[in-house]
């Protein structure tokens, strides 16, 4: 009986009795969700244009952030360090395209996926060696983002909103908007969309596969850097952070591997539901720690009923 109460009654009662905590939880979940969505966005971009499931997206987040921090520590002003980090990501995109993607053209998806796992390991090895293995603090303050928080006294309690989180959300929204405009309005963007629909056809109208791939991987690198800056506002940057990228996977399962809007909605859903479950169910009943697995189990359950995810197209197999 006590257990039934804890599952079906107490959480909702707590939500109503302590609305400030509910709002805080929702906000935290929302911010986390935005960040998951950002990582998922990087995946989606690469998947749409090359059907490659880029396992290295997470490590790219860390690598880009550490590059920026490293430049800054050498005395370079923050915004220029950011630009230099973008250059690093461009070089990385070119290197990956030449060394890994070109030899593997035409190989089955699973091979390409495993290749990105190989890339991940190499990047971790190189990254830890070059940047050192210690934690680094993100230089959000140097980028001009204010570091205080607003304490709103509402709903009979207190809800704390960190300005860096707000900045992260705003930047994410701008990034997504910019990306959508780019994909839909620009020449290059059209080429990317053409490639993702039908690579052969795109090639036959003169779109350069290699250029587009470099561009797409670079864009993914840009997204990775932005994600790193946003995440870095809350935690230190270390290579362990790349496991956060695993969280993007259930997001992709829900939102579909090739849908930008799916990534966003999926990210927000996962972020919010995960936080709610942890605070109101996992901590009282199970001692917490559910955030490692909740998103995956949730995505799994959804997939059992809709194998194509919430947004994906129904998979029709032709013989």
């Amino acid at each position: 009986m006590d257990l039934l109460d804890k599952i079906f009654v107490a959480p909702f009662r707590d939500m109503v009795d302590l609305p400030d905590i509910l709002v805080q939880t929702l906000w935290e979940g929302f911010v986390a969700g935005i960040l998951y969505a950002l990582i998922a966005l990087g995946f989606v971009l690469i998947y749409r244009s090359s059907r490659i499931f880029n396992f290295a997206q997470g490590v790219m987040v860390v690598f880009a952030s550490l590059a920026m921090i490293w430049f800054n520590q050498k005395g370079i002003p923050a915004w220029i360090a950011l630009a230099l980090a973008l250059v690093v990501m461009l070089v990385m995109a070119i290197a990956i395209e030449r060394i890994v993607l070109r030899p593997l053209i035409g190989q089955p998806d699973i091979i390409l996926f495993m290749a990105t796992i190989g890339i991940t390991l190499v990047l971790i090895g190189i990254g830890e060696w070059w940047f050192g293995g210690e934690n680094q603090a993100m230089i959000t303050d140097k980028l001009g983002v204010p570091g205080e928080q607003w304490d709103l006294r509402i709903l009979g309690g207190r809800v704390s909103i960190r300005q860096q989180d707000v900045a992260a959300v705003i930047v994410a929204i701008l990034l997504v908007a910019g990306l959508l405009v780019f994909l839909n309005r620009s020449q290059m963007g059209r080429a990317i969309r053409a490639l993702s629909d039908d690579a052969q056809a795109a090639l036959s109208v003169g779109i350069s596969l290699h250029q587009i791939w470099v561009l797409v991987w670079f864009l993914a690198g840009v997204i990775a850097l932005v994600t790193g800056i946003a995440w870095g506002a809350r935690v230190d940057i270390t290579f362990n952070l790349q496991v956060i990228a695993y969280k993007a996977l259930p997001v992709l399962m829900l939102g579909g591997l090739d849908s930008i809007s799916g990534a966003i909605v999926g990210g927000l859903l996962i972020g919010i539901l995960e936080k709610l479950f942890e605070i109101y169910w996992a901590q009282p009943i199970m001692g917490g720690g559910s955030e490692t697995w909740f998103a995956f189990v949730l995505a799994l359950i959804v997939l059992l009923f809709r194998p194509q995810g919430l947004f994906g197209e129904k998979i029709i197999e032709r013989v």
Partner: protein
Amino acid sequence: MLYRIAGQYKTSYTADQALFPVRQDAILLGIILVIAYVVFPLTASEYAFKALLLPVLVYALAALGLNILTGYAGQLSLGTGAFMGVGAYACSKLTTIFPEMNFIVAVLLSGFFSAGIGVVFGIPSLRIKGFYLAIATLAAQFFLVWLFEKWHWLNNYTSSGAIETRNFSMFGYYIAGPLAPTVVKYYLALVVVTLVTWLALNLTRGNLGRIWKATRDMDIAAELIGIRLMWSKLYAFAVSSYIIGVAGALFVFVAGDGAEPNAFDIPLSFTILFIAIIGGLGSVMGNFLGAILIVAIPAMLNDIPPLFNLTLESDVQEYINQILVGAMILFFLIIEPLGLASFWGLIREKLIIWPFPH
């Protein structure tokens, strides 16, 4: 000249379908078995057993399990580490509840628990495919590791959830745990691995093996020749998880001394996956080759530089190790996606033709 196969004619289907229809292959296996069962125990050092031979055996076994699921049946799984954990915790719990149970029996029984959980988490494969399935297996991976830590009954109420060091004996002699002689533990692992490998070879060469490969290559066509995909996949998960569970039990009590829950986390899953890929998906022998390579690299990074009066600090060794493994995966995927097993196949072809060029 060495591998002259001309003149080795088969006059019955039984002979043609033998495991090693070519005599030289059988001799080669004989040599390997002699080295494993006789030469190593006589000549290997403590260090060699602990750092090289035992890990290779356990990893190769786990990779064999994964290979059956991913290489033969085509169901990608990223949860290998967690299933090793299930086998390990099951073994720990069985021997806690039944202290009189023979250790080997406990190990072989633990596999069944792993198989059962494997089937449960394999059910989604009936509806979900490809990457989505891989992500679903991550659900098992993360959930199970959390469970190992939080379910106090399972981990015998240790504070961190770890499996504690135990000693097991049989007929009055220690066979597992820190008090057991390393050579004995080596033989134990070797016998178990040999037995399971033989069973796996039989299965993959028979009807079930063909059914798995059909499921992997074109499941629609498989259905149309009458194969029940559900059974094919569930059997794959069951057999695979059984083997992985046994490997997990050996990992904790024979190759190691107890383990923390996070020993079974994602890095272990990936290590086993790399061994399966580098060794060759769809091969039984490849897993051993892959394990040897994966275990040898860190050992070499440790032991070779001092020969040149260089020392690499341990963290630098770690970084180089990662880069090398990552580079190897890329190398194999680009040059020979079918892994080391396929390399061996090429070498063998050359030997058969030698000394002629073609």
